[in-house]
Structure formats: structure tokens, C-alpha cells
């Protein structure tokens, strides 16, 4: 089973030939109706879970402290809960974070037209093109071509940025096992990324590793920042959906050989035909199938998820309170006459380091379940750093008076 091949029992023999990188999923659907019809369901899913689900609610209204944490950055304008794959195109086009200067790079993970376009124009050109112009060429949401090779139906890396990031680590996905690909295929998109240089070249910050400490080191060494926080003046980094990075950081399930697809695309029965459901969403909505294949007691595991997510939510709330307190202290310190600039800079660094750790967990999508221990370890560090930032601000100002008001709120 070392070879990366699709399962033998596909159910149906091909009725039509599918062109390489065919963007139109409905054509693939003629050969594989079960997979196509289940993928279609992702368009209309709308059920909410305690911390996730498919309803497009505003994450900013859900946790208002984000307005202070993301102040001055596009994520404070509009930031919603994610939903099914077929909504990718609609949602990226409707989001207010996009404007006339937005690069085409924003389409990278939103359409099955991409593999063809990357092949035709190259990723550098793709990313250089403005979002509004590139949009002319794009009409399909996420589809078969983002995950499969038409001829063999095997799972492949379609995003050049992932191919390059793996190379940078000396890895070649073509040597991966089928079970590994059941996780890596999601890494085409469910990963932290940034835009390198003027060309807004899509890049994954993995050169030093995929742990939060490695990523923060990578950004620090290249002196990268997404924006400057208007109140603290710190050079900030925004983290985005590091689902793959957190899950693969020695989590219980990852080390046990479990793949993303095991939980999010469990095998389903249609009569006697067995296939992977392509209706990808929260496994809590179909726990019987998603967890039941491995856990005899589904009630037990879903209850554990609730316990873990509540522990994480509570710990994350504390981090948010601490970071906001740090921002206020630094802002006030900066206003004090003859403030110690060196210490102030240290305080700003601590703010950056604290918030990017918090965001690594906040932007991740399982409220910690993908890797509970790593999640809580990171949040503990985030709060510690935020409190140190607050203290450094006081040292910089030379007087605690700057925080009295804020502190006693």
C-alpha cells in the first residue's frame, strides 16, 4: 500500500474521457456521480456547531476583541466563519477585504480553474495580475481538479506554492503514501501563507519547519510584517488557517496515522458501493460516520471534543484580554515624554510574538481539537508574552500610572 493509488472499488467505469486539469467538475461527475453529488451539497450546508459549522456568521461580531487585535488591518473590516467548498468563489468575491489593488493571489485556493491557469501563465504571472483582472478568467469554485489527476484519479499537489514549500524542506510529495496524501492534499490550501515581494508571490513560511516557533523565526529573520498595529505600533503578522501545521505537530491523531480525509471525508455507503463523501464539513455533524469507524462509543468522543474546545476557548479568552491590555499599555507608554525607545521596541516585539501565537490558534479551525496539547501549550506562551509586553511598556514609560486606568477596567 505504499503506492499512492485510488481505491480499487470506484464503483463506476469511466463513461467519458476527462481532460487534464478539467475545471468543470460536472464533467468529472459523469464518471463519478457519487463524489460529484456529495460535493454539490457543500454549496447549501448551513448548520452551525458550537464553535464551527457551515453558517456564514461574522467572526468579528462573535468575538469583538478581534476588532482591537486586528485594528488597522483588513480582517477588522469583514471576517466570516468558513463554509462549504463550493462557496469559495462567491465568498472571496463578496468579502470586503478585497479592493482594486488586491492581487490575483487571492484566487489561489478558490477555484478549479487555477491548475489550468498556473500551467498556462505560470504562478508568478498569475499572482502579479490584479484580482479584478484575473477574475475574468475564473468562473469555477473549488472542484475535482484541485485535488485529483484526471487520468489516474490519484490525489496530487496542484498548488505550486505547496510543491515549492515541500521542496524547500527536501520533501517530494510524489514519494508520499496514499494515506499521507489524504492529508497533504488539504495542505494545498489549509495552511499559513504570505505574499513574497512586489509580485505578491504565494509562499508558505516553512523553510525552518512548520511549528509556530519555526514560522515566527522565519518571519523575524526576513523582517516581514503584514501591517503595523496603529495603537501599539508593533510590526504584526496575520496567521491564516494553519490547519495542516497544527494537526501535523505530533497530534494524537496524526501520530496514530489518521488523515484529514478520515474525519472529513469518511467512507459512505450507497447501496453496496462505498465511496468517500465529498460533502466536507464539521465532523460533528456526521460523527457516526466520521468517528464511528474508529471509535465504538461516538457519544464519548463528541463529549470529549466539547470538553477540549471549552478548555481551549476559555484559555484563548484569557490570551485576548492580556493582548488587549498590552496594546493599551504600549500605546500609553509611547505617549509619555522621554519614554525609553529601546524598551518600547522590546514591548512591541513581545506584542507581535504574543499575538501571532494567539492567531495561530484562533485562525486554525477546530478550536484546538486537531491538537489539544499543542494548542494549549501555545496559548499559555501567548498570554505569558502579552503580560510581559504590558510590563515592558511600564518599564519603558518609567511609571505604572500609564496603565492604572486601563488595568482596573
Amino acid at each position, binding site marked *: *500500500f*505504499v503506492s499512492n493509488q485510488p*481505491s480499487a472499488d470506484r464503483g463506476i467505469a469511466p463513461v467519458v474521457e476527462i481532460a487534464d486539469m478539467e475545471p468543470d467538475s460536472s464533467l468529472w461527475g459523469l464518471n463519478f456521480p457519487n463524489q460529484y453529488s456529495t460535493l454539490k451539497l457543500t454549496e447549501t450546508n448551513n448548520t452551525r456547531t458550537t464553535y464551527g459549522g457551515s453558517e456564514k456568521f461574522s467572526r468579528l461580531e462573535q468575538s469583538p476583541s478581534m476588532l482591537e487585535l486586528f485594528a488597522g488591518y483588513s480582517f477588522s473590516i469583514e471576517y466570516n466563519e468558513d463554509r462549504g467548498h463550493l462557496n469559495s468563489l462567491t465568498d472571496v468575491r463578496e468579502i470586503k477585504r478585497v479592493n482594486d489593488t488586491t492581487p490575483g493571489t487571492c484566487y489561489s485556493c478558490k477555484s478549479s480553474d487555477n491548475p489550468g491557469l498556473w500551467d498556462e501563465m505560470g504562478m508568478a504571472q498569475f499572482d502579479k495580475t490584479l484580482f479584478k483582472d484575473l477574475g475574468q478568467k475564473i468562473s469555477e469554485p473549488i472542484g475535482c481538479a484541485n485535488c485529483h489527476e484526471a487520468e489516474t484519479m490519484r490525489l496530487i499537489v496542484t498548488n505550486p506554492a505547496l510543491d515549492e514549500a515541500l521542496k524547500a524542506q527536501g520533501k517530494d510529495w510524489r514519494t508520499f*503514501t*496514499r*494515506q*499521507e496524501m*489524504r492529508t497533504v492534499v488539504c495542505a494545498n490550501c489549509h495552511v499559513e501563507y504570505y505574499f513574497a515581494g512586489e509580485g505578491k508571490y504565494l509562499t508558505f513560511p516553512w523553510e525552518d519547519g512548520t511549528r509556530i516557533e519555526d514560522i515566527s523565526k522565519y518571519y523575524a529573520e526576513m523582517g516581514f510584517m503584514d501591517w503595523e498595529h496603529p495603537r501599539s505600533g508593533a510590526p504584526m503578522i496575520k496567521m491564516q488557517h494553519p490547519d495542516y501545521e497544527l494537526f501535523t505537530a505530533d497530534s494524537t491523531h*496524526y*501520530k*496514530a*496515522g*489518521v*488523515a484529514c480525509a*478520515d474525519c472529513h471525508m*469518511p*467512507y*459512505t*455507503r450507497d*447501496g*453496496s458501493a*462505498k465511496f468517500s463523501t465529498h460533502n466536507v464539513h464539521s465532523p460533528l455533524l*456526521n460523527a*457516526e*460516520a466520521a468517528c*464511528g*469507524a*474508529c471509535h*465504538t462509543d*461516538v457519544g464519548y468522543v463528541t463529549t470529549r471534543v466539547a470538553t477540549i474546545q471549552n478548555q481551549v476557548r476559555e484559555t484563548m479568552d484569557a490570551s485576548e484580554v492580556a493582548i488587549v491590555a498590552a496594546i493599551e499599555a504600549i500605546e500609553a507608554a509611547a505617549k509619555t515624554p522621554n519614554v525609553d525607545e529601546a524598551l518600547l521596541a522590546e514591548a512591541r516585539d513581545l506584542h507581535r510574538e504574543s499575538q501571532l501565537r494567539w492567531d495561530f490558534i484562533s485562525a486554525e479551525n477546530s478550536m484546538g481539537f486537531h491538537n489539544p496539547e499543542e494548542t494549549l501549550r501555545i496559548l499559555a506562551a501567548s498570554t505569558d508574552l502579552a503580560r510581559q509586553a504590558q510590563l515592558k511598556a511600564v518599564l519603558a514609560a518609567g511609571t505604572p500610572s500609564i496603565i492604572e486606568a486601563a488595568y482596573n477596567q
Partner: protein
Amino acid sequence: MKIALVIGIIAVLAVVGVGLYVTDFTAYLGNNPSTCNNCHVMDAVYESWYHGGHKQWANCNDCHTPHDLIPKYIVKAQSGYHHVTAFVFGDIPDAIRAKESSREVVQENCIRCHEETVSTMLESSMEFDRYCFDCHRSVAHGERGISLLPYQHSEESK
């Protein structure tokens, strides 16, 4: 009322009829594991049993049916009915898991074969209130019971 009754009877007959047909009835009076595997939905458990620790010692019925003659055929009738109706009416659970009743049957059989080994445990003045397979999760069908490929073949887990 009468009609309902008639329909009811017909329905039952239908089920039994189909049952006899799809399940090649006489086969189920026997103990051949492959007869269980007549059903594709039994593939996973058959596979896991086949590769599991007990193949050389025990077949399906050694564990899944009581061993005093009469109850054996009652259980077979019951589960056979479950299986066939579930099959015919298509309400096959997402994950097929042993019902409490089957667990108790299996437990009796674990003890039947291992009585000497577990005598000390069972002699306690307090009831032995758990299943052997709460701990021995892998003896029968592999650690994850019905967990499907490719998980059981994954490189990571080895």
C-alpha cells in the same frame, strides 16, 4: 385495522421470503465464516477477523452466538432478521457496531473459552462489570474494529 393487519402479515412474509432468498438460508444454520461475508457490509469485520489474533481459534459463531443449542438459533434468527431488514429497507447504520445484546453474547463466549485464565477476576465478591474487549480491543477485529482501509494500512501508525 384488518387491512393494517393483513399488510403487516404480508410485510413480514415478504421480509422472511426475501430473507430466505438473499441469505441462502441453510447456510446460516452452519458455522462457516464466509457465509457471514455474503454481505458486503460484513467485509470489514470479516477482513479484520481474518487478519486478527483469533482466526485460528474462533469463527464468527464461536463468539457471536450462545453455545447452548436452543438460544443459538434464537439469536441467529434475531440477528438474521436485523441484518436482512436493515439490508432490504436500506437503513444500514453509518458505522455498524455491536448491539448491547451481541456484546453480552460475545462476553459469555470469551469467558467460555478462557474461564481458567480469568477465574481470579470473576471470583471477586463484586460483579465483574466490564467487557473483556474494553481492554482487549484488538483480539477480535483489530484495534479499531470496523475501521476501514487505508487507515489500517497507513505507514504512520506503524
